[in-house]
């Protein structure tokens, strides 16, 4: 038996977006991860990850271009923060994937309840 038949349909849904490319790179995901704890300067990101300052700056540029991070100047520092709304396409994809599984497992659940209710009456 297989309860995974419909995953394919979800996975094949078209989801073309620059956000997906930006987030596909491991170092950039690490940077996003660091930023989940709050707004940070480039230097703070560099010290938390084993990346050079030019690397971090390059990645931040890509992330800024797709709108995943925003920056602002504070004195001589430039502070970067996450823009979680831009993760919406990813969130939607994950939600759809989870929905497909939940629909299937909910149908099994309903069917089990139905069988047990029938069983209470006669079939034991």
């Amino acid at each position, binding site marked *: 038996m297989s*309860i*995974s*038949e419909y995953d*394919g349909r979800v996975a094949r849904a078209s989801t*073309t977006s620059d956000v997906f490319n930006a987030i596909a790179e491991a170092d950039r995901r690490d940077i*996003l991860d660091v930023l989940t704890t709050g707004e940070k300067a480039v230097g703070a990101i560099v010290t938390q990850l084993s990346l050079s300052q030019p690397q971090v700056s390059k990645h931040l540029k890509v992330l800024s271009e797709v709108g995943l991070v925003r920056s602002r100047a504070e004195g001589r520092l430039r502070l970067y923060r996450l823009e979680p709304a831009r993760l919406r396409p990813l969130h939607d994809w994950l939600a759809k*994937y989870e929905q497909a599984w939940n629909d299937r497992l*909910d149908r099994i659940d309903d069917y089990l309840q139905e069988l047990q209710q029938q069983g209470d009456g006669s079939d034991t």
Partner: protein
Amino acid sequence: MTPNRHGSARIEFPNELDVLITREFDAPIALVFDVLTKPEHVSKWGATPPDQMKVCEIDLRVGGTYHHVFVTEDGTECSFRGTYLEIEPPVRTVETWLFDGWPDAEAVETMQLHETEGVTTLTMRLAFRDQAGRDHMTRFDGQEESFDAMEDILRSLLETETVPE
């Protein structure tokens, strides 16, 4: 009263090759096992409406095969098949999993059941042979990178900040 468990499945991507799904049911383990492995039951819940389950063949013995075919509203057929590698009623089956549309993405599916005080927990592990296979399940258009770390980040983001509607 039994709790409403709808929508409570947990889906994880624990490593590069696996997809792990966990869900509880308010039913005894023997009944859950039957519902998941007997064609007369699987044919009742197998298809997502309005799709229909056209073929539901299950030969539940080691070396036996299963074959499921679904038909969508527009007549498209999706065919899944595999061979049982282990059968241990009512707690476990292990079978190969092959979607005819992805001939390169064979996986091994392990279904494990565990009952505690009338609640049966189903754990499904779908283990792909290589990452190309699993990426069929999780990649975005043309995207070869894995989904694992992305998923973790996404979840932590969703926990810390609300994504506006």
